[in-house]
Each structure stands twice: as C-alpha cells, then as structure tokens.
C-alpha cells in the first residue's frame, strides 16, 4: 500500500520526534532505524548512546543487538555500564529514551515482565532490562507498540517501567521527572494530556479510522480536537531505510528486537 510498510511509517514518524543535538538512548529495531534516519536527515548532531556502553556510535551496518561490535568500532567512547547508568542516565544527560513492551496502558505505564500474575504468570516476558531506569530517568520517552486491545489495556498487568502511573501528578509526587511523550503504534500516534496524563490520539496513519482505533484499544481512548493524519514517509526516508539502514530487511521483516 502506497509504496511503504507500516514499519517504515513508524520509523519515519519516530525519527521526526528527534531534535538535532538530542542525546538518545537507542534500542534495536524501530528505535535504531529511527535514530539513524534522523541522523542522516535533519539531526546530524544527534548523539547515540547504547546501554551496552557505546557512546557517539557511527555503526557501519545495522546493529543486530544493543551490544553489536559495530557500535564500538569508531565510536567516541566506550564506558562501563556503571557509568552509563550513573553518569549518563541518572545524572540527567539522556534526552530521549525509546521503549517498547508487551503492554502499554492509558497512562503510559509499560509492562515487559509478565502477563497475568507475577507468581504464576500466563506468559513470562523478558523483564525490565534497562527499561525501568530509562522510563524513570530519561527526559523524554518515546514508546513503540502494536495497537490492539491486548497490547493497549486500560491498566497493565505489571508496571515494569513507570509512565504517569494512575495519572495526574502521581509521577511527579514520587520525585520522577520526564515521562512518556509519544506513543507510536501501527495505527496512529498518541500524546499525553498535560493535566490528566492520559493517552490521547493525535494522529492516525493513512487509511485508519477512529472506529478502528477504538476497536483496537483497551479503553475508550480520547481523540485530540486537532486530530491529523500521520505524514507518510518521504521517498527519501524510504530510500535511506531500505538502501542504507537495513539493506537486508532484517528488522522490517521481523517483529523481534530489544
């Protein structure tokens, strides 16, 4: 449809969220492609940091894990993980963190731990990794997830990574700054109401209807008054993604990555 895939649309939309000069905690998959796309398009001053300890990376191939050797070769610095978490993340040096998960709820809380009860899980997921601290300590968080009643429930089964918790000022009251700013799904993009901290649909991808969004979201999601259509990726976006970033189509074919 229209010469691009939904994944490419998501990558392109995520890239636009990054500003030149941002220091970005990068994950594998959509985040990695988005950051590299932004770096080549409008944000040559972006600084990529991976929780594995590589800083200022210039990967010569698409990294297949957050500890890929291509992130080390030619980077500006490689530091112990203790420094990544203490001196970069907790110190407040990370502008943007990308997160995914099995569930994201109405207030941007993320679950990547268990479906069902913690002690007797229906599905045991990988767990936090660095997600909890990114959610707690990065200045802005961008979330990518599939749009379904299962993945977007009203309340996550387990808060692995804190969003706005039960909304309003709760996050602030616990001493946490920042918080999720944008959720990008395969159907649309959402931001958070500055008062209630509830997820609000701000744009729909081409061809998607509000009805489809509502049918695929676990609560009666609010819709922004100035709802727009998500701009599709430009031909140049698509060319860079396909020819430069992922010539073998590794991530755009699969759903995996962490």
């Amino acid at each position: 449809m229209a010469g691009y895939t939904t994944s490419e649309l998501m990558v392109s939309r995520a890239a636009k969220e990054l500003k030149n000069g941002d220091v970005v905690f990068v994950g594998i998959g959509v985040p990695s492609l988005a950051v590299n796309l932004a770096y080549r398009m409008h944000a040559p001053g972006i600084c990529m940091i991976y929780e594995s300890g590589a800083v200022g990376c210039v990967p010569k191939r698409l990294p297949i894990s957050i500890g890929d050797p291509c992130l080390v070769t030619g980077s500006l610095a490689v530091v112990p993980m203790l420094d990544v978490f203490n001196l970069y993340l907790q110190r407040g040096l990370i502008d943007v963190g990308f997160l995914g998960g099995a569930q994201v709820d109405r207030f941007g809380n993320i679950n990547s731990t268990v479906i069902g009860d913690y002690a007797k899980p229906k599905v045991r997921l990988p767990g936090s990794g660095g997600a909890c601290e990114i959610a707690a300590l990065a200045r802005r968080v961008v979330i990518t997830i599939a749009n379904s009643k299962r993945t977007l429930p009203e309340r996550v089964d387990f808060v692995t990574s804190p969003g706005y918790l039960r909304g309003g000022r709760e996050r602030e009251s616990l001493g946490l700054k920042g918080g999720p700013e944008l959720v990008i799904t395969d159907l649309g993009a959402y931001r958070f109401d500055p008062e209630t901290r509830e997820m609000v649909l701000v744009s729909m991808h081409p061809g998607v209807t509000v009805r489809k969004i509502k049918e695929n979201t676990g609560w009666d999601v609010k819709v922004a008054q100035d709802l727009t259509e998500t701009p599709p990726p430009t031909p140049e976006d698509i060319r860079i993604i396909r020819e430069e970033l992922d010539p073998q189509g590794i991530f755009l074919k699969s759903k995996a990555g962490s």
Partner: protein
Amino acid sequence: MSFGRFLAAAPPGGRETGATDVSKLMTMKDAIARFVRDGDLVVMEGFTHLIPFAAGHEIIRQRKRDLTLARLTPDLIYDQLIAAGCARRLIFSWAGNPGVGPLHAFRRAVEQGRPRPLEIEEYTHFGMVLRFMAGASNLPFLPTRNYPGTDLTRVNPGFKKVRSPYGDEELWCVPALNPDVTIVHAQRADADGNTQVWGLYGVQKEAAFASRRVIVSVEEVVDPSVIRSDPNRTLLPGAIVTAVVHEPFGAHPSFVQGAYDRDNDFYVGWDTISRDEAGFGRYLDEWVYGLPGRAAYIGKMGARFEELKADRQMCAPVNYGF
C-alpha cells in the same frame, strides 16, 4: 601476589585464590572442577560481548547442580544451563534471546517447572550493576533514584528504601551481591591473571571484584610485558584472579572485539533448537556432552570460524614514557 591467605576467611565479602605457589594457568576442565561447586552462586558476565560460553559448556559437561546463576541478561548461556538442569535459582534483569525472541528453556522452567522449577530474583540492569558494585565495594547496599512507581519493588523484597540524611528524600536501594565465583572471558591476560579488555566493558570488573573466586578465560595468554605496556587497559588485576584458562574462541557464539564477530545465525537458529526439550537435548548431546572441550567444538564448527574473524582496525598507540 595473592589474596588467598586472608580472604578465604572473611565472609561474606571473602575471597579465595588457589595456593599461592601453584600456577594459575590451567585447563577449563580443571578450573571448573576446582572452583565451581554444587550450590554455588555463579556469575558469568559479559554484556553481549565476551560471554564465557566455553566455561558454560564445561559446567554443563561436569553436571554441576543447584547453582544460583546471576547475570544481567541470561542469554543463551544460561538458557543452556537451565535446560541442562544445573540451575536452582536465577538472579537477572532481562531474559531474552537478544534481537531474536524469548528464551525457551527459561520460560519452560518458570512457566512449567521443567526440567525443574526455577526460582527467580528479578532486578533491572541498573539494579544488577549496583548490586555488583556494592559487593565489590564491601558495602551492604547502594542507593539510586530509580524505581519509584515500578511493581518490581512490590514483588521483590530485595528492594528497600533509605531516607537520605541530607534532606527528606527517600531513595530505593539494592543489596550487595557477592558471588562465590565469577567467570569472565577476555582478549588477553598474563599467566598471573592481569586481564585486559577493550570494546564493551559490561559489568565484568564489578562482578569480579565482588566475587570470592574469579576464573578468567582468554583468547591469548601474553607475556606480562604486553600488559605492562598499556596499564590503563587492565580491567582485572591478577591479585583477584584464581584461575587463568587459555581458551581461543571461548566466547562463541558471542563476539570478541578485534577477534571475531557475533555468530548471529546461531542466535537466530537457537530459537528453533530450543523451542522444545527434545531439540535442546539433541543440541546438548551433540555440542556439549559429546565433546571433550572447546578445541573439539572449534574443530566441529570448521570453516564457520574463518567467516567470523574480525577485520583489522588498530588503535593509535600512546606514549607512556616520562
């Protein structure tokens, strides 16, 4: 230069090394037989980089039991140990096959108790790093601004709060972790265990300093003069190292910066191999139980290792003169 004498007696932060007058250089078989014991708290670290797979296989081969395994990312190495029945408990922060999908043996153990139930103790990457650092610093805990609002602190009583004596803030803390044995793989060490690493550092230094015993396997055993030519490169001093094992390609299928690339096909293929217990059993029979050690493993891999060999991209050397 051995801490064996006094540290063997100092719980819980104690430390043991081999007898001071015996060489630390030994085979993997001997190192695992002598320094990994049933019931031990074992750490095999290396974040994506330098994962000590050869040591993991030897632990499986020697059928060690009731281990508590700690590691940020259990990865394939602990998935194999879990499937082989070595583990009783897992302390971790992210259990997946990175870039591929779930860890099937881990999930079977947690969800179905097969081949045996697996207790889990769950932190986050930052929490695990701080636990090792607290252990390495002989402190009971370290504080962090992380964790408000997460359910992890609700299900894991290991998280506790402390009130800052400088103001009203409350901070979450994690407790020190002091392993019985930590195993790491590195690019090079001398025979006394002075170990140098470049590329990703992970948490190897903190885990090793926190540990009572330390086994280092390396791509290359070098003359001390190589180590001494670049002392800032040293990650672990020989003084905390119990055993040194010369084990080329000891990190496959993970990678060693400057030596060989990650074998991503193996990681992807693992998803199929490990999906059911029978497949897992066949893998262990063929590649672990069926082989005497790493040299045979390399021989069996054949030309694959040639394909993975690293290109040459040397650093600019620096002057240490005065």
